[in-house]
Protein backbone atom coordinates (compact mmCIF):
# COMPACT_ATOMS: atom_id res chain seq x y z
CA UNK A 1 0.00 0.00 0.00
CA UNK A 2 2.74 2.40 0.94
CA UNK A 3 4.62 1.73 -2.29
CA UNK A 4 1.53 2.49 -4.22
CA UNK A 5 1.17 5.85 -2.59
CA UNK A 6 4.84 6.55 -3.16
CA UNK A 7 4.57 5.70 -6.81
CA UNK A 8 1.50 7.78 -7.13
CA UNK A 9 3.07 10.88 -5.68
CA UNK A 10 6.11 10.54 -7.90
CA UNK A 11 4.30 9.71 -11.09
CA UNK A 12 1.48 12.06 -10.92
CA UNK A 13 3.85 14.97 -10.66
CA UNK A 14 4.30 14.59 -14.39
CA UNK A 15 0.74 14.25 -15.37
CA UNK A 16 -1.93 16.62 -16.41
CA UNK A 17 -5.62 16.08 -16.28
CA UNK A 18 -7.95 17.98 -18.54
CA UNK A 19 -10.96 17.80 -16.27
CA UNK A 20 -12.94 20.88 -15.55
CA UNK A 21 -13.67 21.85 -11.98
CA UNK A 22 -17.33 22.01 -12.70
CA UNK A 23 -17.49 18.40 -13.80
CA UNK A 24 -15.77 17.31 -10.71
CA UNK A 25 -18.21 19.09 -8.49
CA UNK A 26 -21.08 17.46 -10.25
CA UNK A 27 -19.61 14.04 -9.71
CA UNK A 28 -19.11 14.76 -6.12
CA UNK A 29 -22.72 15.58 -5.50
CA UNK A 30 -24.59 13.35 -7.90
CA UNK A 31 -22.85 10.09 -7.57
CA UNK A 32 -22.74 10.01 -3.88
CA UNK A 33 -25.54 7.49 -3.51
CA UNK A 34 -24.45 4.69 -5.80
CA UNK A 35 -20.83 4.66 -4.82
CA UNK A 36 -18.85 2.08 -3.00
CA UNK A 37 -18.98 2.38 0.75
CA UNK A 38 -15.93 4.56 1.24
CA UNK A 39 -15.53 8.15 0.30
CA UNK A 40 -12.47 7.18 -1.59
CA UNK A 41 -14.32 4.71 -3.74
CA UNK A 42 -16.82 7.29 -4.82
CA UNK A 43 -14.32 9.73 -6.15
CA UNK A 44 -12.48 6.93 -7.87
CA UNK A 45 -15.48 5.71 -9.77
CA UNK A 46 -16.48 9.18 -10.67
CA UNK A 47 -13.14 9.85 -12.20
CA UNK A 48 -13.18 6.59 -14.04
CA UNK A 49 -16.52 7.45 -15.51
CA UNK A 50 -15.38 10.93 -16.29
CA UNK A 51 -14.14 12.45 -19.50
CA UNK A 52 -10.44 11.88 -19.33
CA UNK A 53 -9.11 12.95 -22.67
CA UNK A 54 -5.47 12.28 -22.41
CA UNK A 55 -3.86 8.92 -21.77
CA UNK A 56 -1.60 9.13 -18.81
CA UNK A 57 1.68 7.58 -18.10
CA UNK A 58 1.06 5.19 -15.27
CA UNK A 59 3.70 3.15 -13.58
CA UNK A 60 3.46 -0.58 -13.60
CA UNK A 61 3.14 -0.96 -9.88
CA UNK A 62 0.26 1.43 -9.65
CA UNK A 63 -1.74 -0.47 -12.20
CA UNK A 64 -1.00 -3.84 -10.74
CA UNK A 65 -1.78 -3.14 -7.13
CA UNK A 66 -4.95 -1.16 -6.86
CA UNK A 67 -5.70 -0.72 -3.17
CA UNK A 68 -9.43 -0.27 -3.71
CA UNK A 69 -12.01 -2.34 -5.51
CA UNK A 70 -11.82 -0.85 -8.95
CA UNK A 71 -14.33 -1.58 -11.67
CA UNK A 72 -13.20 -3.61 -14.68
CA UNK A 73 -12.47 -0.88 -17.23
CA UNK A 74 -9.57 0.21 -15.13
CA UNK A 75 -6.59 -1.34 -16.94
CA UNK A 76 -7.22 0.07 -20.39
CA UNK A 77 -8.35 3.29 -18.83
CA UNK A 78 -5.59 5.78 -18.64
CA UNK A 79 -6.31 7.12 -15.26
CA UNK A 80 -6.03 4.91 -12.22
CA UNK A 81 -3.29 7.04 -10.81
CA UNK A 82 -5.32 10.19 -10.93
CA UNK A 83 -8.25 9.20 -8.76
CA UNK A 84 -5.99 7.61 -6.23
CA UNK A 85 -3.94 10.71 -5.94
CA UNK A 86 -7.01 12.83 -5.78
CA UNK A 87 -8.00 10.71 -2.83
CA UNK A 88 -5.08 12.07 -0.99
CA UNK A 89 -7.10 15.23 -0.49
CA UNK A 90 -9.64 14.96 2.25
CA UNK A 91 -12.70 16.82 1.31
CA UNK A 92 -14.44 18.83 -1.34
CA UNK A 93 -13.60 21.89 0.66
CA UNK A 94 -9.98 21.23 0.13
CA UNK A 95 -10.57 20.86 -3.54
CA UNK A 96 -12.20 24.20 -3.63
CA UNK A 97 -9.44 25.84 -1.70
CA UNK A 98 -6.85 24.26 -3.91
CA UNK A 99 -8.87 25.16 -6.93
CA UNK A 100 -8.60 28.78 -5.97
CA UNK A 101 -4.92 28.33 -5.57
CA UNK A 102 -4.59 26.51 -8.82
CA UNK A 103 -4.75 29.36 -11.22
CA UNK A 104 -1.12 30.08 -10.75
CA UNK A 105 -0.07 26.48 -10.51
CA UNK A 106 3.19 25.48 -11.97
CA UNK A 107 2.10 22.69 -14.28
CA UNK A 108 1.81 23.47 -17.95
CA UNK A 109 -1.52 21.85 -18.59
CA UNK A 110 -3.65 23.06 -21.43
CA UNK A 111 -5.67 26.15 -20.77
CA UNK A 112 -8.93 24.30 -20.35
CA UNK A 113 -7.57 21.92 -17.79
CA UNK A 114 -8.10 23.95 -14.66
CA UNK A 115 -9.08 21.07 -12.53
CA UNK A 116 -6.32 19.01 -13.97
CA UNK A 117 -3.76 21.56 -13.13
CA UNK A 118 -5.01 22.14 -9.66
CA UNK A 119 -5.19 18.49 -8.89
CA UNK A 120 -1.73 17.90 -10.16
CA UNK A 121 -0.49 20.97 -8.40
CA UNK A 122 -2.35 20.03 -5.26
CA UNK A 123 -0.84 16.67 -4.78
CA UNK A 124 2.34 17.56 -6.52
CA UNK A 125 2.68 20.34 -4.04
CA UNK A 126 1.95 17.86 -1.36
CA UNK A 127 4.27 15.34 -2.89
CA UNK A 128 7.11 17.45 -4.06
CA UNK A 129 6.78 20.80 -2.42
CA UNK A 130 6.96 23.64 -4.95
CA UNK A 131 4.75 26.80 -4.85
CA UNK A 132 3.28 26.85 -1.38
CA UNK A 133 4.02 23.51 0.16
CA UNK A 134 3.56 24.68 3.70
CA UNK A 135 0.03 25.92 3.06
CA UNK A 136 -1.07 22.72 1.43
CA UNK A 137 0.63 20.58 4.00
CA UNK A 138 -1.26 22.11 6.83
CA UNK A 139 -4.49 21.51 5.00
CA UNK A 140 -4.10 17.93 3.86
CA UNK A 141 -4.22 15.01 6.18
CA UNK A 142 -0.79 14.40 7.57
CA UNK A 143 0.19 10.95 8.86
CA UNK A 144 0.97 8.44 6.16
CA UNK A 145 0.84 10.98 3.41
CA UNK A 146 3.61 13.02 4.93
CA UNK A 147 6.00 10.11 5.13
CA UNK A 148 5.66 9.24 1.50
CA UNK A 149 5.66 12.76 0.28
CA UNK A 150 8.77 13.43 2.30
CA UNK A 151 10.58 10.85 0.23
CA UNK A 152 9.18 12.39 -2.90
CA UNK A 153 10.24 15.83 -1.73
CA UNK A 154 13.74 14.59 -1.04
CA UNK A 155 14.18 13.10 -4.45
CA UNK A 156 12.75 16.11 -6.14
CA UNK A 157 14.87 18.35 -4.01
CA UNK A 158 18.04 16.50 -4.89
CA UNK A 159 17.16 16.58 -8.55
CA UNK A 160 16.48 20.27 -8.31
CA UNK A 161 19.81 20.95 -6.68
CA UNK A 162 21.63 18.87 -9.25
CA UNK A 163 19.89 20.69 -12.01
CA UNK A 164 20.78 24.03 -10.50
CA UNK A 165 24.42 23.06 -10.25
CA UNK A 166 24.42 21.89 -13.82
CA UNK A 167 22.85 25.12 -14.95
CA UNK A 168 25.42 27.09 -12.98
CA UNK A 169 28.24 25.15 -14.61
CA UNK A 170 26.75 25.78 -18.00
CA UNK A 171 26.54 29.49 -17.35
CA UNK A 172 30.10 29.51 -16.04
CA UNK A 173 31.33 27.74 -19.15
CA UNK A 174 29.61 30.18 -21.40
CA UNK A 175 30.79 33.19 -19.44
CA UNK A 176 34.38 31.96 -19.29
CA UNK A 177 34.54 31.53 -23.04
CA UNK A 178 32.95 34.91 -23.66
CA UNK A 179 35.43 36.57 -21.33
CA UNK A 180 38.31 34.89 -23.07
CA UNK A 181 37.11 36.06 -26.45
CA UNK A 182 36.62 39.59 -25.20
CA UNK A 183 40.13 39.59 -23.80
CA UNK A 184 41.52 38.34 -27.08
CA UNK A 185 39.61 40.93 -29.05
CA UNK A 186 40.84 43.80 -26.95
CA UNK A 187 44.35 42.37 -27.10
CA UNK A 188 44.24 42.10 -30.86
CA UNK A 189 42.79 45.56 -31.26
CA UNK A 190 45.59 46.95 -29.19
CA UNK A 191 48.21 45.07 -31.16
CA UNK A 192 46.62 46.15 -34.39
CA UNK A 193 46.62 49.80 -33.39
CA UNK A 194 50.23 49.55 -32.29
CA UNK A 195 51.33 47.93 -35.51
CA UNK A 196 49.47 50.43 -37.63
CA UNK A 197 51.12 53.23 -35.75
CA UNK A 198 54.52 51.64 -36.24
CA UNK A 199 53.88 51.25 -39.92
CA UNK A 200 52.90 54.87 -40.29
CA UNK A 201 55.94 56.01 -38.40
CA UNK A 202 58.25 53.91 -40.48
CA UNK A 203 56.67 55.09 -43.68
CA UNK A 204 57.01 58.72 -42.82
CA UNK A 205 60.58 58.16 -41.69
CA UNK A 206 61.64 56.75 -45.01
CA UNK A 207 60.06 59.55 -47.02
CA UNK A 208 56.58 59.59 -48.33
CA UNK A 209 56.92 58.50 -51.87
CA UNK A 210 57.83 54.89 -51.73
CA UNK A 211 61.40 54.45 -52.83
CA UNK A 212 61.39 53.76 -56.49
CA UNK A 213 63.00 50.62 -57.57
CA UNK A 214 65.97 51.50 -59.72
CA UNK A 215 66.24 49.28 -62.68
CA UNK A 216 69.76 48.44 -63.69
CA UNK A 217 71.41 51.32 -65.56
CA UNK A 218 74.39 51.41 -67.70
CA UNK A 219 77.41 53.09 -66.29
CA UNK A 220 81.04 53.10 -67.16
CA UNK A 221 82.19 49.77 -68.38
CA UNK A 222 85.43 48.50 -66.96
CA UNK A 223 88.32 48.44 -69.39
CA UNK A 224 89.25 44.83 -68.77
Amino acid sequence: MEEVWKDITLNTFHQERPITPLDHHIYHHHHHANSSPSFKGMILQDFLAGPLNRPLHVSQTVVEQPPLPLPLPLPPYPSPALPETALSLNSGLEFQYLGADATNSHSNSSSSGHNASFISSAFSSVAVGPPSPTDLFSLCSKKRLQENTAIGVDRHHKRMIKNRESAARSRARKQAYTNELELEVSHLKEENAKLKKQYEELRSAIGNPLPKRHPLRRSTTAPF
Partner: protein
Amino acid sequence: MSRDPLVVGNVIGDVLDPFVKSTTLRVIYNNKELTNGSELKPSAVENEPRVEIRGRDMRNLYTLVMVDPDAPSPSNPTEREHLHWLVTNIPETKNASFGNEIVCYESPRPTAGIHRFVFVLFRQSIRETIYAPGWRQNFNTREFAALYNLGDPVAAMFFNCQRENGCGGRRYQSVSGWT
Protein backbone atom coordinates in the same frame (compact mmCIF):
# COMPACT_ATOMS: atom_id res chain seq x y z
CA MET B 1 34.68 39.79 -9.28
CA SER B 2 37.32 38.43 -11.57
CA ARG B 3 36.68 38.13 -15.25
CA ASP B 4 39.57 35.78 -15.79
CA PRO B 5 38.22 32.77 -17.70
CA LEU B 6 40.12 30.46 -15.38
CA VAL B 7 38.26 31.90 -12.43
CA VAL B 8 34.88 32.05 -14.09
CA GLY B 9 35.27 28.48 -15.31
CA ASN B 10 36.21 27.44 -11.78
CA VAL B 11 39.58 26.04 -12.78
CA ILE B 12 40.92 28.33 -10.08
CA GLY B 13 39.23 26.76 -7.16
CA ASP B 14 38.79 23.22 -8.33
CA VAL B 15 42.32 22.61 -9.55
CA LEU B 16 44.53 25.58 -8.79
CA ASP B 17 44.91 28.45 -6.42
CA PRO B 18 45.04 31.98 -7.79
CA PHE B 19 48.31 32.77 -9.49
CA VAL B 20 49.89 35.41 -11.64
CA LYS B 21 50.44 34.43 -15.22
CA SER B 22 54.04 34.97 -16.18
CA THR B 23 54.59 32.81 -19.23
CA THR B 24 52.84 32.46 -22.53
CA LEU B 25 51.62 28.97 -23.18
CA ARG B 26 50.37 27.90 -26.58
CA VAL B 27 48.48 24.66 -27.06
CA ILE B 28 48.02 23.62 -30.66
CA TYR B 29 45.76 20.77 -31.72
CA ASN B 30 45.77 19.90 -35.42
CA ASN B 31 47.47 23.15 -36.36
CA LYS B 32 44.82 25.18 -34.61
CA GLU B 33 45.72 27.17 -31.56
CA LEU B 34 43.50 26.47 -28.60
CA THR B 35 41.36 29.29 -27.26
CA ASN B 36 40.89 29.15 -23.52
CA GLY B 37 37.47 27.89 -22.54
CA SER B 38 36.52 26.69 -26.00
CA GLU B 39 34.94 23.32 -26.72
CA LEU B 40 36.61 20.58 -28.66
CA LYS B 41 35.44 17.15 -29.73
CA PRO B 42 37.23 14.02 -28.58
CA SER B 43 38.21 13.35 -32.19
CA ALA B 44 40.00 16.69 -32.32
CA VAL B 45 42.04 16.02 -29.20
CA GLU B 46 42.83 12.41 -29.80
CA ASN B 47 46.53 13.03 -30.33
CA GLU B 48 48.77 15.05 -28.15
CA PRO B 49 48.96 18.73 -28.98
CA ARG B 50 52.01 20.78 -29.64
CA VAL B 51 52.63 22.79 -26.50
CA GLU B 52 54.89 25.77 -27.03
CA ILE B 53 56.47 27.81 -24.31
CA ARG B 54 57.35 31.31 -25.40
CA GLY B 55 60.43 32.92 -24.08
CA ARG B 56 64.07 33.71 -24.56
CA ASP B 57 66.07 31.63 -22.16
CA MET B 58 66.42 28.00 -23.09
CA ARG B 59 67.87 27.23 -19.73
CA ASN B 60 64.49 27.59 -18.05
CA LEU B 61 62.77 24.26 -17.69
CA TYR B 62 59.07 23.68 -17.32
CA THR B 63 56.72 20.95 -16.20
CA LEU B 64 53.39 20.47 -17.95
CA VAL B 65 50.41 18.77 -16.33
CA MET B 66 47.12 17.98 -18.05
CA VAL B 67 44.20 16.93 -15.88
CA ASP B 68 40.47 16.38 -16.04
CA PRO B 69 38.85 17.66 -12.84
CA ASP B 70 35.42 16.43 -13.93
CA ALA B 71 36.03 12.72 -14.02
CA PRO B 72 33.90 10.65 -14.23
CA SER B 73 31.21 13.30 -14.50
CA PRO B 74 31.08 16.98 -13.55
CA SER B 75 28.17 16.47 -11.19
CA ASN B 76 29.95 13.62 -9.49
CA PRO B 77 33.70 14.17 -9.79
CA THR B 78 34.81 11.29 -7.61
CA GLU B 79 37.97 10.79 -9.64
CA ARG B 80 39.02 14.40 -9.64
CA GLU B 81 41.56 14.97 -11.08
CA HIS B 82 42.21 12.43 -13.77
CA LEU B 83 45.79 12.78 -15.03
CA HIS B 84 46.04 12.82 -18.82
CA TRP B 85 49.62 13.93 -19.45
CA LEU B 86 52.76 14.77 -17.51
CA VAL B 87 55.91 16.13 -19.14
CA THR B 88 58.89 17.63 -17.35
CA ASN B 89 62.10 19.44 -18.23
CA ILE B 90 60.65 21.23 -21.20
CA PRO B 91 63.07 23.95 -22.29
CA GLU B 92 61.73 27.44 -22.78
CA THR B 93 61.22 28.42 -26.45
CA LYS B 94 60.67 24.78 -27.32
CA ASN B 95 57.68 22.51 -27.20
CA ALA B 96 56.72 19.57 -25.03
CA SER B 97 58.29 16.96 -27.30
CA PHE B 98 61.65 18.24 -26.05
CA GLY B 99 60.87 17.29 -22.47
CA ASN B 100 60.64 14.05 -20.54
CA GLU B 101 57.25 12.43 -20.87
CA ILE B 102 56.60 10.92 -17.47
CA VAL B 103 52.95 10.01 -18.07
CA CYS B 104 51.97 9.58 -21.71
CA TYR B 105 49.13 11.47 -23.30
CA GLU B 106 45.75 9.87 -22.79
CA SER B 107 43.06 10.93 -25.25
CA PRO B 108 40.11 12.56 -23.56
CA ARG B 109 37.05 10.33 -23.78
CA PRO B 110 34.39 11.80 -21.53
CA THR B 111 31.33 9.62 -21.22
CA ALA B 112 29.09 11.69 -19.00
CA GLY B 113 28.64 15.43 -19.02
CA ILE B 114 30.90 18.17 -20.27
CA HIS B 115 34.39 17.95 -18.83
CA ARG B 116 37.06 20.58 -18.46
CA PHE B 117 40.59 19.61 -19.47
CA VAL B 118 43.22 21.79 -17.88
CA PHE B 119 46.83 22.40 -18.87
CA VAL B 120 49.04 23.70 -16.08
CA LEU B 121 52.59 24.91 -16.54
CA PHE B 122 55.14 25.15 -13.75
CA ARG B 123 58.59 26.66 -13.96
CA GLN B 124 61.24 24.38 -12.54
CA SER B 125 64.11 25.76 -10.52
CA ILE B 126 66.34 22.83 -11.35
CA ARG B 127 66.28 19.85 -13.66
CA GLU B 128 63.82 17.52 -12.00
CA THR B 129 63.44 13.83 -11.67
CA ILE B 130 59.74 13.39 -11.30
CA TYR B 131 58.17 10.02 -10.73
CA ALA B 132 54.94 8.93 -12.30
CA PRO B 133 52.09 8.41 -9.86
CA GLY B 134 50.77 4.86 -9.48
CA TRP B 135 47.51 5.66 -11.26
CA ARG B 136 45.86 8.44 -13.16
CA GLN B 137 42.77 8.92 -11.01
CA ASN B 138 42.55 11.28 -8.09
CA PHE B 139 45.67 13.15 -9.02
CA ASN B 140 46.11 16.37 -7.07
CA THR B 141 47.90 19.13 -8.91
CA ARG B 142 48.33 21.25 -5.82
CA GLU B 143 49.91 18.40 -3.89
CA PHE B 144 52.06 17.43 -6.83
CA ALA B 145 53.42 20.96 -7.07
CA ALA B 146 54.10 21.02 -3.37
CA LEU B 147 55.81 17.65 -3.44
CA TYR B 148 58.27 18.68 -6.13
CA ASN B 149 58.61 22.28 -4.99
CA LEU B 150 57.35 23.63 -8.26
CA GLY B 151 55.80 26.69 -6.68
CA ASP B 152 52.86 28.49 -8.21
CA PRO B 153 51.85 27.79 -11.80
CA VAL B 154 53.14 30.22 -14.40
CA ALA B 155 50.40 29.56 -16.94
CA ALA B 156 47.22 27.55 -17.36
CA MET B 157 44.61 26.91 -20.04
CA PHE B 158 41.56 24.76 -20.34
CA PHE B 159 39.07 23.50 -22.88
CA ASN B 160 35.73 21.74 -22.64
CA CYS B 161 35.01 18.35 -24.11
CA GLN B 162 32.02 16.04 -24.23
CA ARG B 163 31.13 12.79 -25.93
CA GLU B 164 31.58 12.83 -29.67
CA ASN B 165 27.87 12.82 -30.34
CA GLY B 166 26.94 14.62 -27.18
CA CYS B 167 23.94 16.85 -26.90
CA GLY B 168 25.36 19.42 -24.55
CA GLY B 169 23.88 17.79 -21.51
CA ARG B 170 20.32 18.28 -22.65
CA ARG B 171 18.52 15.00 -22.20
CA TYR B 172 14.92 15.77 -22.91
CA GLN B 173 13.52 17.38 -25.99
CA SER B 174 10.64 19.60 -25.10
CA VAL B 175 7.67 17.41 -25.87
CA SER B 176 4.14 18.62 -25.53
CA GLY B 177 2.47 16.67 -22.76
CA TRP B 178 5.25 17.02 -20.26
CA THR B 179 4.36 19.40 -17.48
